[in-house]
């Protein structure tokens, strides 16, 4: 075999490997298109899979290259670590569905371990105390999941208000990723929404934080601008808007070779079959174009 051929093989292989897994956040409404050739990854929302009367594997028979479990109640910015029962059930669902990763949001949903739940995550105050609590909880969660070989990713959230703080969100997130070594579930639309609502440059945000992350997953979704509230609402109800497609390209470029998977989220106004397929194929086409240019 000549040296040229070897190089060609090597370059094809590494290019192929640098294209992330692509897929949907699984909903009953898109289950039927998961065998689309553009899809080789899937994300399961833990609360949807956690049906005690279910007999079969939530994911069914199909196999994927990446399966992520997405949780809502780890509440890593709470003062207390999450409870063992919740972690055990999360891990059980991950094992049952051969998931390689588990993720949750950078925020708090709960006041304390035996306390109350708000129903959705609020952003932490960007302060050293919040950073300490968050890093300690992520360390705890990561250690728990690492015992069964599951990587943990933390997602940047879209928020509607901010607490008084001493650092920027980018600073805070950078430190969380650096201190804990956990993966970053970079929700591109959340960065865009916060940038619109709170006036910062989303491109700079991603460029600033990306070096702190070893491994990355992406979320893409579409929301709408609520004129009454004067804010972009991350409702997962619309097609991905043009500015998010551009930011996605920038993200793929910045995160070259560390992005494991891209998940597209849709929770309302579900598209028809063509719509489901068109959008995920566009996600793949852009990934292939940026990650392995011809």
């Amino acid at each position, binding site marked *: 075999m000549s040296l040229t051929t070897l190089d060609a093989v090597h370059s094809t292989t590494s290019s192929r490997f640098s294209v992330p897994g692509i897929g949907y956040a699984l909903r009953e409404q898109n289950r039927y298109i998961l065998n689309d050739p553009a899809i080789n990854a899937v994300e399961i929302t833990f609360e949807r899979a956690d049906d005690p*009367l279910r007999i079969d594997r939530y994911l069914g028979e199909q196999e994927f290259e990446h399966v992520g479990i997405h949780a809502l109640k780890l509440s890593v910015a709470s003062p207390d670590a999450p409870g063992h029962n*919740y972690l055990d059930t999360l891990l059980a669902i991950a094992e049952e569905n051969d998931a390689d990763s588990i993720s949750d949001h950078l925020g*708090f949903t709960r006041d304390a371990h035996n306390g109350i*739940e708000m129903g*959705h995550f609020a952003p932490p105050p960007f302060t050293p105390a919040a950073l300490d609590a968050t890093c300690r909880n992520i360390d705890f969660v990561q250690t728990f999941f690492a015992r069964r070989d599951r990587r943990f990713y933390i997602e940047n959230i879209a928020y509607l*208000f901010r*607490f008084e703080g001493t650092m920027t969100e980018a600073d805070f997130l950078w430190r969380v990723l650096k201190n804990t070594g956990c993966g970053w579930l970079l929700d591109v639309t959340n960065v865009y929404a916060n940038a619109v609502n709170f006036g910062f440059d989303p491109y700079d945000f991603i460029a600033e934080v990306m070096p702190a992350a070893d491994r990355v997953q992406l979320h893409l979704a579409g929301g709408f601008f609520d004129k009454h509230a004067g804010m972009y609402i991350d409702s997962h109800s619309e097609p991905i808007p043009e500015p998010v497609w551009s930011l996605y390209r920038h993200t793929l470029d910045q995160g070259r070779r560390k992005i494991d998977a891209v998940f597209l989220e849709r929770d309302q106004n579900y598209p028809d079959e063509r719509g489901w397929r068109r959008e995920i194929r566009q996600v793949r086409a852009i990934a292939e174009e940026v990650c392995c240019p011809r």
Partner: protein
Amino acid sequence: MITLAPNMIDYRDQIQRCAQTMALGYAEDVRPFLADDMTVAHVRLFTDGNLDKRIEKVLDQVELLKTAFDKLDDLVSEYIHEVPLAAYDTGCSDGDRFLCWLKLTQVTSPEQQDHISCQLARHEVENVARQNRLGHVRFQELRSLTARLTADLHTNPDLRMHLNPIRTWATFQTHVLLDEEATAPADVLFFANGQQIRTSAFEDSGKDFVETLASHGPFTLTDWKRLDRSTSRSDLIEFCLDAAEMGLVAFG
């Protein structure tokens, strides 16, 4: 004992105050902690959205009550402003807490109480399955083989009867949710049937059968005849076949 750093005590205090107040939809108390350019209206966008979703979920979880209570939406709305969501709320736990709140705070008719009992029992089946998921899956697997084994019941002395472990009893005081032929009050068994929940009203003999199998089972027909000398073997077989048909008993 773990001693917390002073900044961690302040942090705990801040998160507790903010979470507790936002969980009930009272945004005002968050004001001292907000960034300079933020107003309470921003927080209200967050809390209103959360409470709307919570109302929707609770209404979904207590669907059976819709025909029994005129202003169910108002009652749920009152509840969520009084009782915050519990930590790690799973499955139907918020709906259950609403039903308990309803019993404590409202004057309800016997018919309405039956609707509440029915909804609570359905949730309880899910709770039992959550605590014994392996038992649920194993029984449903066994059940899938039962049709093939039914013919052997007369001839195979080693065939054992297994009771569905995912079950709970409720008592209905009135006729509102019962079939025409049943008499009130009636003991009703709720049990898992695959991914569904099935119900069946039992008379005393049927209830005894279920309770005997629950305390001594799984057992064979011969074991059972030893425990219950008064019932004929053919009656026992008939009962078993009926119970197997409805998914309450499996053979193995």
